[in-house]
């Protein structure tokens, strides 16, 4: 493992994004547009304040999941992965390099989306904005880590995109956004308790509700971090130096 090579990968991924204006626009603007729509639809009701913060946790997760799984799959199909596997690069250099690059994009995305939700749509936030941004970044890195893992099972870009509903929608249904987690059917609760998006949404809701949410958000972040590490480790198992 090498910090230098990790950062070289990060710089390269960011450089690739730079020439891809459409992806940058999608990353930054889609959450803003969806937030705006949501605020508009539920204008005059408390619903926006209720689900707005949770969605600020879901967006970076979903967007980074898709972007990462497609980007790493491209790395496999273009042959650059095979070439990199013949260099001194460690697999973790590549994975952490990707996670850092998309984590950085996530900071941007979180700042833009939260600023829009709070200052334009009037989202009520009891806790400090920086905690919200930290949680959003953790969610984004989680999306990146799971995306890296999912791309290991995809053979084509079509499949990679299809993994999104498979990996993300069940978590979305169980994360407490539609039905509060403690009101889920008994059988589903353990799943809700195990899946990481539940903790992402919990953390966002706590930032929205409490003026000093750190004590509650901390444990959620620990669970998310554990998922990030586990997916990166599992993901690096799907990256093989030798292939058939």
């Amino acid at each position, binding site marked *: 493992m090498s910090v230098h090579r990790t950062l*070289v990968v990060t710089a390269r991924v960011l450089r690739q994004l730079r020439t891809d204006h459409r992806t940058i626009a999608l990353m930054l603007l889609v959450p803003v547009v969806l937030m705006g729509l949501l605020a508009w639809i539920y204008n005059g009701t408390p619903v926006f304040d209720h689900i707005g913060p949770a969605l600020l946790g879901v967006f970076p997760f979903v967007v980074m999941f898709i972007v990462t799984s497609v980007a790493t799959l491209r790395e496999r199909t273009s042959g650059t992965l095979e*070439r990199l*596997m013949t260099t001194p690069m460690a697999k973790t250099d590549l994975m952490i390099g990707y996670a850092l690059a998309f984590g950085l994009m996530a900071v941007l995305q979180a700042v833009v989306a939260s600023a829009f939700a709070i200052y334009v749509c009037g989202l009520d936030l009891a806790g400090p904005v920086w905690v919200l941004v930290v949680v959003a970044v953790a969610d984004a890195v989680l999306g990146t880590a799971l995306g890296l893992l999912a791309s290991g099972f995809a053979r084509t870009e079509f499949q990679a995109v299809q993994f999104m509903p498979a990996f993300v929608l069940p978590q979305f249904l169980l994360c407490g956004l539609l039905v509060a987690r403690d009101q889920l059917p008994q059988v589903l609760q353990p799943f809700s308790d195990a899946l990481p998006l539940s903790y992402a949404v919990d953390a966002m809701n706590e930032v929205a509700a409490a003026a000093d949410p750190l004590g509650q958000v901390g444990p959620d972040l620990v669970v998310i971090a554990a998922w990030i590490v586990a997916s990166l480790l599992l993901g690096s198992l799907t990256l093989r130096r030798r292939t058939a």
Partner: protein
Amino acid sequence: MAPGATAAAVEVDHLRVVRGGRVVLPDLSVTVPAGQVVGLLGPSGGGKTTLMRAVVGVQVVESGTVTVLGEPAGSPGLRSRVGYVTQAPSIYDDLTVRENVRFFARMVGADTASAEEAIAAVDLESHAGVLAGRLSGGQRSRVSLASALVNHPELLVLDEPTVGLDPVLRRDLWRLFHQLAAAGTSMLVSSHVMDEAARCERLLLLREGRLLADEPLPALLERTGAVDAETAFLSLIDAAEKEAAS
């Protein structure tokens, strides 16, 4: 060892590779001498790429050993000593030529100056700032080649590096290969173009995973009584096919 031959760059011993349920290399033993340009030729699907992948250590092998520069193929110590250019250009289309070459340079610990040198060596200075995705096929394969030259590896494994290039460029690249070999680099170069056989110091002819020839061109011509490499190969392949049919 033949007179004039130096130590081995690659030693393949009873290598057996199965891909997708097909036996691609049944039992291959071959030696690639160091400091020479060795040509790997043969019909499509004969196992050239598979052999090269085994040499650079990215191919799952069933049995046998591949020793590269004295170490088992793919061992960590070899990763900065061996350069590999895949058959299809492996570069990032959304980076410029220079960004591509610099990236691979940084990954193997080479500096920016070496990256510029490598770009010049493949004659792409005029396109250094162009996105790789906007280049022609031959230009893209040269970016891929430059990315492997950056750290002056001791062994270069090049899978059809001259495919799709015009005669002038091909001559220039072969000149470059010989310069590299003269400076001590061992070169294993695959090709489809039979007249390129004449540019190699030693030829390996691989058909259906079996070696039909492993000798310098003059020896091959003498053995087969043919006038050029193409005729020699065709006669060897025809003979092998007849033998397989009988």
